[in-house]
């Protein structure tokens, strides 16, 4: 990653808005049934293409559906999908393209790029007032069938999208929120 083009950094109120979006985003596990407007979905997808990718290779592809029947099947084969989404973006890796660059199967860099794309999608959805929740527990084989994915396009992660609804299952873990200090080690150690 890297290779900046020298664009001006985000500052002032824009910078605060970005930080506020980062701090207030939550995984949404309860969604209302009404659809998400296509322009909103397209805006989320447009944001996803700006996610950083290793070597600027863009090996991820996004398969999208807002079809109720397809969504029902996706949920049935995705044990981790607790919500009833109005739309879903399936982040896929083009394994054939990756192999062309010399990536061995399972190379961690490919998954890092799935993560950066997902984080960008989650934030973009939040910025547009749409709830989003990532799902990694699904049958890759089944999802490939449901979506009719071609050979070599591997589904890696599903982002559920929908209008947030109150309620839903309690988080897996409550308790004290971790601070950045809990997660950080300075070298050399700070007093």
């Amino acid at each position, binding site marked *: 990653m890297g290779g900046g083009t020298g664009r001006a950094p985000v500052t002032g109120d824009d910078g605060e808005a970005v930080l506020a979006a980062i701090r207030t985003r939550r995984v949404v596990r309860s969604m209302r049934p009404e659809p998400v407007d296509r322009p909103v979905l397209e805006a989320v997808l447009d944001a996803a293409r700006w996610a950083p990718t290793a070597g600027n290779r863009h090996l991820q592809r996004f398969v999208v559906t807002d079809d109720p029947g397809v969504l*029902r*099947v996706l*949920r*049935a*084969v*995705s*044990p*981790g999908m*607790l919500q009833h989404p109005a739309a879903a973006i399936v982040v896929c890796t083009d394994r054939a393209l990756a192999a062309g660059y010399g990536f061995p199967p399972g190379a961690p860099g490919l998954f890092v790029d799935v993560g950066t794309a997902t984080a960008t999608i989650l934030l973009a959805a939040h910025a547009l007032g749409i709830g989003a929740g990532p799902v990694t*527990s*699904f*049958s890759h*084989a*089944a999802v490939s069938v449901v979506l009719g994915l071609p050979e070599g396009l591997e589904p890696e992660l599903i982002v559920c999208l929908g209008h947030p609804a109150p309620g839903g*299952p*309690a*988080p*897996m*873990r409550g*308790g004290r929120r971790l601070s950045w200090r809990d997660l950080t080690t300075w070298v050399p150690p700070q007093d």
Partner: protein
Amino acid sequence: MDGSTEESQAWVLDENEALELLGYLITAARTQVDEAAEYGPLRLLTVAHRLADRIVPRASAGTARFVTGPLAQVPELAVPRDGRAEYVARLDELCRAVAGLLSDRWAAGPDGPR
């Protein structure tokens, strides 16, 4: 109530509902191979809640009391990592409750069939 009454033999799932749960169970078997072990009970609780949600509108009063009472009190995303003893105790309590429900329906009590 025993298991022979007309009410107890009523259908509580239609085929679509059953297929959704079947899909969940089959794919969960596969995903669990790659997931943390603590997700095992979590996935089973999730499908128990889904089954309960589906059957409660058509279930008998006793079953409905179970799924809206003892089962509903156990979070479907609970994992044993934080407070294993409490987690196990909670599941044991749920196991006792389901045993009581099943005994009321199927087992003979000290005074004969219930």
